[in-house]
């Protein structure tokens, strides 16, 4: 058995672990906001359903207080500040691609658990996978065949003090093949086969060939950007200090968060890596983005940022070439993705 030694961090709790930006942020749930009165400032569009087959929609997790809090919602990409349609599907993370969706939700079982739901265009469940841990990340490949998710897990054994870990899974819908923990993938660091007891993956993004993926791997106290092949089942590191990668629709660039400061105070700066030259470009967003961002199109990055008190977050956009400035897209929202030809 591999030791569940992952991050050696002494933290005050699992919630603190998430908030401490060890990996991509988990959206903290306020005190039952779904029971609060609806926010009058957030307009709701009751004229239509949330439909993943409808092009030009920005999907997200609704963070506006009221009955639809935590549910998948959508707005037109052309009018992201406009009235939102809110579904009844509750997710901690949601991602849409190829007229389908992947919803990573909390499970209602007594043990800390999550459930990964693949849904059709009408948000109906087509495949369900029970997952241990606390929801953190979820993403589909551009063609919708490959799904991947990351959860935080804490071992049931207390025999190895001070350890926390993530669990990252890849589901191949076409082969109906689930790799519930990809830590076993043969890994090379540079050219050297790595037999680490402590490897830990998070934040997978798939290419359009439905087999190549990028992710973050941590081992030996370092984090690397890793490129994997889900068919050949091997992986190799590309560089250090590039977490939560997100591949551009044209497959040429990776957006990622780079650690620019030690500790928990504003540690991240979002960058874009050109895979041909391996040159990185810092984006105009200077706030610390702790998210696995998405590409709204080949030129624009979307991401969620917590507000001052950390309980609520908004979706922002920034040009992918380092120019311009960040702009607010959707208030009280997180976990963005778009329908229609974008990954």
């Amino acid at each position, binding site marked *: *058995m*591999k030791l*569940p030694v992952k991050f050696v961090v*002494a*933290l*005050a*709790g699992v919630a603190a672990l998430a908030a401490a930006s060890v990996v991509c942020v988990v959206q903290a749930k306020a005190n039952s906001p779904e029971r609060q009165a609806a926010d009058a400032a957030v307009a709701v569009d009751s004229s239509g359903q949330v439909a993943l087959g409808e092009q030009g929609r920005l999907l997200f997790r609704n963070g506006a207080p009221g009955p639809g809090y935590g549910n998948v919602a959508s707005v037109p990409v052309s009018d992201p500040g406009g009235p939102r349609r809110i579904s009844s599907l509750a997710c901690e993370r949601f991602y849409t691609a190829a007229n389908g969706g992947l919803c990573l939700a909390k499970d209602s079982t*007594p*043990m*800390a*658990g999550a459930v990964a739901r693949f849904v059709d265009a009408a948000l109906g469940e087509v495949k369900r996978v*029970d*997952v*241990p*841990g606390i929801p953190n990340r979820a993403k589909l490949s551009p063609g919708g065949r490959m799904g991947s998710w990351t959860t935080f*897990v804490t*071992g*049931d*054994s*207390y*025999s190895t*003090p*001070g350890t926390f870990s993530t669990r990252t*899974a890849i589901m191949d819908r076409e*082969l*109906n*093949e*689930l*790799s*519930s*923990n*990809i*830590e*076993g*993938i*043969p890994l090379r660091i540079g050219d050297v*086969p790595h*037999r680490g*007891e402590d490897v830990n993956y998070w934040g997978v993004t798939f290419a359009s060939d439905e087999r190549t993926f990028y992710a973050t791997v941590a081992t030996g106290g370092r984090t690397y950007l890793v490129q994997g092949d889900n068919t050949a*089942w*091997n992986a190799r590191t590309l560089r250090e200090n590039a977490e939560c990668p997100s591949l551009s629709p044209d497959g040429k660039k990776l957006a990622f968060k780079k650690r620019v400061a030690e500790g928990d105070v504003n540690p991240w700066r979002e960058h874009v890596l050109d895979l041909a030259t391996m040159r990185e470009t810092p984006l105009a967003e200077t706030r610390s983005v702790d998210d696995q961002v998405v590409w709204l199109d080949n030129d624009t990055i979307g991401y969620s940022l917590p507000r001052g008190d950390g309980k609520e977050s908004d979706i922002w956009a920034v040009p992918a070439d380092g120019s311009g400035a960040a702009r607010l897209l959707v208030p009280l929202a997180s976990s963005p993705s778009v329908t229609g030809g974008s990954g």
Partner: protein
Amino acid sequence: MNRMVKPGTAAIAAIVLLAQPVIASSAAAGPVESLLSVNKRTTTSTVENESFSGALAVDGDSTTRWASLEGDPQWIAVDLGGPADISRIKVFWESAHAKDYQVQASDDGQNWRDVKTVVGSDGGLDEFTDLNTSARHVRIFGTARATVYGYSLWELEVYGVRTGDGDIQPPSVPSGLRQASSTTESITLGWNPASDNVGVVEYEILRNGNVIGRSATTSYTDTSLASGFDFQYAVRARDAAGNLSGSTAAVKASTRPTPSDGIVIALAGDIAKPELPSEHSRTAELVAKIEPRYVLTVGDNQYVDGTIEEFRSYYDKTWGKFKKITKPTPGNHEWNNELAGYKQYFGKIATPKGKPYYSFDVGAFHFVALDSDPVYNGGGAEQVAWLRKDLAKTKKSCIAGYWHHPRFNSGNSGDAKSVAPLWNELARAKADVVFAGHDHHYERTKPLDVDGHVDEANGVRSVIAGIGGDSLYLDYKAREGVEKILGKHGVMKLVLKGKTYSWEIIGTNGELLDKAGPYRCR
């Protein structure tokens, strides 16, 4: 502070803890102390999750526990239900124990006074005697933790004499406890009724020191036990007010042995962890009881690195007794040491043909014992080629494989695609079953195809038995095809009869955890 146990010897120590007879609080004639806290209402500062509630620290079951969230302070309080003269308190910590804490008492559950202050506890069992304090509530108030985790408590026991109004008199101790009858899997106990000033409402039955059941009558049938095992039973009585009698002296009872006309094999993996000597010692006792012809191991025989020093210090003292009949396979932990310690310890047994993989025949069965670590890490082509040749040669009707890394797995590691070359060779040879370890739980599946989907006609059964002694991992999620899954320490008793096979999983307390088969070879 009386540290009676080392961390990790939980179950053994718990038996000591709970099986101690209730003794008089003083030599002088007077009220007899009894256990006041069992199943009483608890309150806690926090719980880690619903599976670790405060009630589990006063349930008389030392395999369940309360666990708090991280942070200081944290506390657990028990309401004894009425005032009492408290004579003795036992605090049995899990390995995530308090370093500094207070034992507190209160009459109203609001205002607390310190009864004892503990600084620098080393965990295990802390027992406080001669307390002579009157209170209705007792609280363990942790101010500093020994680990980065929360506070975790197997059991909290408060002993004393009730002093309040109403019924404060416990029932008499039941008498005449005896084994009334038994089968190969069950034991029926009988006893004489206890008396009480108001009335006995039920009896609690303890097996090997832990409450395992309740009965409103004077008999109880304990089921799902391994055959041919001995158990120690005791019984105590409870009245409507919750007063609990002392326990009877322990009585030995036994299940009937199973007549076996087959070939018996013991199997487990993930065995000798230096920090948990009691667990592999107990699984080794099971192996001895099973009286196998062979012992098969599915890797990680010795932690942490499988050095010769570690093998000699731990494995050799327990499972080493069966070395001559052992047919081992190595795991990733032996590979930490490049198999040097493993090969030196087992000698020719581990490498009959010079390699750490080999095959042998038992009755109608052909066994292949493989070294999965190199394959798991993307190599091992030479072994796969050997395996294909070996399987092509065998004339046996039944084929079983065993190695460390499971191809299909509901546990922590999940399915391992890199092990497919081994599984696929077994599938091609129409093998019947594959045994593995690596994740520390037990599971068995219906026959699976090469992609891990159920194929009753042409699949291979997948079994994980990484329950030989290392810490259990309970965060499994049953995958497709799983027929049984559980997380307890134990050993597989595999029985081969002609061209059929079956097995039982026997837990370290002698419970029959699972029965599988008989299956006919395909």
